[in-house]
């Protein structure tokens, strides 16, 4: 049961992470390959602050703020790049941030990592046990899901989609594509920061090794597999991948062969990404037009 | 030599040609004129196979070719010179000609063909080491023509050779076309700048909104008031 809860918590954190990436990739068409950087910034910010005995609330708020600020600073120049070059620039940024975690020892303790990150206390309630933490993550996931849902269903989200479809035509309709892209990028970064902060407080230990390209691939795969540009796709993708990954533990594999398991599993991830692109680029859940609008009453 | 029968074609959802009929005989210069958007370029691309027609027949020397790829058509003796960008700008003039000689296969033949071109166009020989992108508009068009005529195709499909050129240069281009035609090459030319083309053409078709409206000798169409009406309404 505890293991199941543990997997659920992991899954929920990845859902937040994937939802935030989906806003960028699925709805705005920004192929961000460095999303893990914001995950890391969120994790480190909140961890460092709470380790210095600031309250969790402040740590969380600062984690979101800093992720947002970094998102803004990175977005400002790189969002002027064309799609694939934007992807490469963000990939580079992701690696650079990891190197900062690794090398700025005075701040991050470098490769030593940060052990003993306290469990969160929200409004003097301490989320110490697994079920409690599960509820906390569930709450944050729900907030993220609903917030992003409101966002993408709003006129704001509509503009994002228009930019994804045809940036030039959106400009011709008077939409400041650059500014909208920055906003989307910042919002995405903030929620990635949230996922990171939750992750840090959950494992109670973070180190630069947690924020590598592997995470980027995993979260990208979650979004692509589930169905980018759909509300439920990232949820489905995260659930499938996390549980698939962990179910491998229950294959009672003789340890001699354990060495083959991790690369094999990652090969499967890579192959899955290729297969999705070749045979079902839209993902498991297909994007559909919206039928209900802000006015809520369904107009027939 | 070339027969187009009830051709429907277009780009994806946009149907541009709604049933075009056309016939080109051996050693003829046939011109297709028509206002913007009448489907002239689409017709050429469909004949050459850059666009796959929806339906209809295209026959070349008795062979049905409507679903063949451009590469096969080059092998059959059809060449196509697109409008606008029709040379490789970062290759030298010589290299452009060498590329054009690809269908000749035999290196010796290639060399000979290129030398013939240089004999005929000393200007190109003088500039053979220069990048083709640095030539003037007229020179580029000459290069494209030379490159194509070099392989002695049966039929050249030529799309708006006068586009963006000064009238004097256009005259020069048309003289070259005439010369090549006298060597036995058949031409199907698409032109908007109708009068110059009509003077040269043996026969001409007028295309309007994806169907052919008129057919006559070049001279005949020059006199035809209907042409002007199609272009400028009325």
């Amino acid at each position, binding site marked *: 049961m505890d293991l199941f809860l543990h997997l659920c918590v992991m899954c929920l954190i990845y859902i937040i992470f994937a939802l935030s990436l989906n806003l960028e990739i699925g709805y705005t068409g920004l192929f961000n390959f460095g999303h893990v950087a914001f995950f890391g910034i969120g994790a480190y910010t909140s961890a460092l602050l709470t380790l210095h005995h600031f309250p969790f609330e402040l740590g969380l708020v600062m984690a979101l703020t800093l992720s947002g600020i970094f998102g803004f600073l990175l977005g400002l120049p790189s969002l002027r790049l064309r799609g694939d070059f934007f992807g490469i620039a963000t990939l580079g940024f992701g690696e650079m941030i990891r190197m900062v975690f690794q090398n700025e020892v005075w701040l991050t303790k470098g490769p030593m990592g940060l052990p003993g990150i306290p469990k969160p206390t929200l409004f003097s309630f301490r989320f110490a046990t697994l079920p409690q933490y599960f509820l906390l993550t569930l709450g944050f996931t729900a907030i993220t899901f609903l917030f992003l849902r*409101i*966002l993408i269903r*709003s*006129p*704001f989200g*509509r*503009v994002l*989609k*228009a930019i*994804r*479809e*045809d940036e*030039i*035509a959106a*400009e*011709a*309709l*008077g*939409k*400041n594509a650059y500014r909208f892209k920055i*906003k989307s990028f910042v*919002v995405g970064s903030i929620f990635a920061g949230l996922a990171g902060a939750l992750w840090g407080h959950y494992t109670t230990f973070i180190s630069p090794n947690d924020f590598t390209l592997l995470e980027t691939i995993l979260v990208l795969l979650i979004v692509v597999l589930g169905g980018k*540009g759909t509300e439920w796709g990232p949820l489905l993708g995260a659930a499938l991948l996390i549980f698939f990954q962990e179910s491998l533990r229950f294959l009672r594999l003789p340890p001699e062969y354990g060495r083959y398991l991790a690369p094999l599993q990652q090969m499967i991830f890579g192959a899955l990404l290729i297969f999705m692109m070749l045979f079902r680029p839209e993902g498991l859940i297909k*994007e559909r*037009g*919206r*039928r209900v*609008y*802000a*006015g809520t009453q369904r*107009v027939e | 030599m070339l027969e187009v029968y009830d051709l429907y074609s*277009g780009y*994806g*959802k*946009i*149907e*541009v040609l709604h049933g075009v009929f056309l016939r080109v005989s051996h050693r003829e210069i046939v011109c297709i004129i028509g*206002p*913007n*958007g*009448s489907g002239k370029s689409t017709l050429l691309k469909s004949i050459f196979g850059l666009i796959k027609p929806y339906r209809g027949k295209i026959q070349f020397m008795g062979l049905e070719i409507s679903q063949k790829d451009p590469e096969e058509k080059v092998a059959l003796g059809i060449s196509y010179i697109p409008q*606008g960008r029709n040379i490789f700008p970062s290759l030298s003039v010589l290299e452009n000609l060498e590329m054009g000689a690809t269908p000749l296969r035999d290196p010796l033949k290639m060399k000979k063909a290129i030398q013939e071109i240089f004999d005929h166009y000393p200007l190109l020989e003088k500039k053979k080491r220069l990048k083709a992108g640095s030539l003037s*508009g007229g020179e580029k068009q000459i290069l494209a023509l030379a490159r194509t005529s070099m392989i002695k195709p049966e039929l050249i499909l030529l799309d*708006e050779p*006068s*586009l*963006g050129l000064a*009238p004097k240069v256009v005259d020069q281009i048309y003289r070259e076309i005439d010369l090549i035609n006298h060597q036995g090459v058949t031409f199907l030319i698409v032109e*908007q*700048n*109708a*009068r*110059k083309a009509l003077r040269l053409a043996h026969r001409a078709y007028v295309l309007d*909104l994806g169907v052919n409206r008129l057919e006559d000798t070049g001279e005949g169409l020059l006199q035809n008031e209907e*042409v*002007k009406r199609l*272009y*400028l*309404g*009325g």
Partner: protein
Amino acid sequence: MLELRGLSKAFGGIQAVVDFSARLEKNRITGLIGPNGSGKTTLFNLITGFIKLDRGEVFFKKEKIDGLLPHEIASRGLVRTFQLSRVFPRMTVLENLLLAPQGQMGEKLWALGLKRERVRDEENRNLKKALSLIEKIGLLPLKDEFAENLSYGQQKLLEMARLFMANPEMILLDEPTAGINPLMIRKIMDFILTMREMGKTFFIIEHNMDVIIECCDWVFVLDHGEKISEGTPEEIQNDPRVIEAYLGT
């Protein structure tokens, strides 16, 4: 309404537009014609800020707008369409329309939280308007379809409706009737004429002379980037310079 002074643009030594000046009056439909490659679309791009001017000034409602970004120009009420239809393919017909109104409160992030009522009201208003428009162009059964599933003619119609929805003061249309059948052309012409009656101003690139003759009050003719003639459609039809530009000498 729109005043152009000496617009010029060259691409790598080739003059695409040469010293083009014109005044376009309010509530008129002005046509722009010329042979292929004469620089018509470039001129549109220059006016709407998609390409930077080499020289010249653009005034819209007596305000200088050259140097502004495309979306800034559009939000001032000068909106354009493109040669090929540019609907947003993976958005529904309704969404395509709802996108159009300028200055929507709901497009501001903060307003989504703080002014929810206003956003909702605004959205409802737009929705009502959009639905009546969709009904008018006969796409009501398709309102929740992705725009990519429409036929090309329907996409063009949708683009027109979107313009209507955006409600700009002046519209630049780039070949609105290209590639569609005569029935659709009729519908689109009706659309243009209705909007003119509502006080809109148009500037249209068009090849179909019937459309020009029926709709336009005034026509400019472009050849090799230069304005070679202007006048009423009848005058243009008989202008030897125009005939020469089209048919050659």
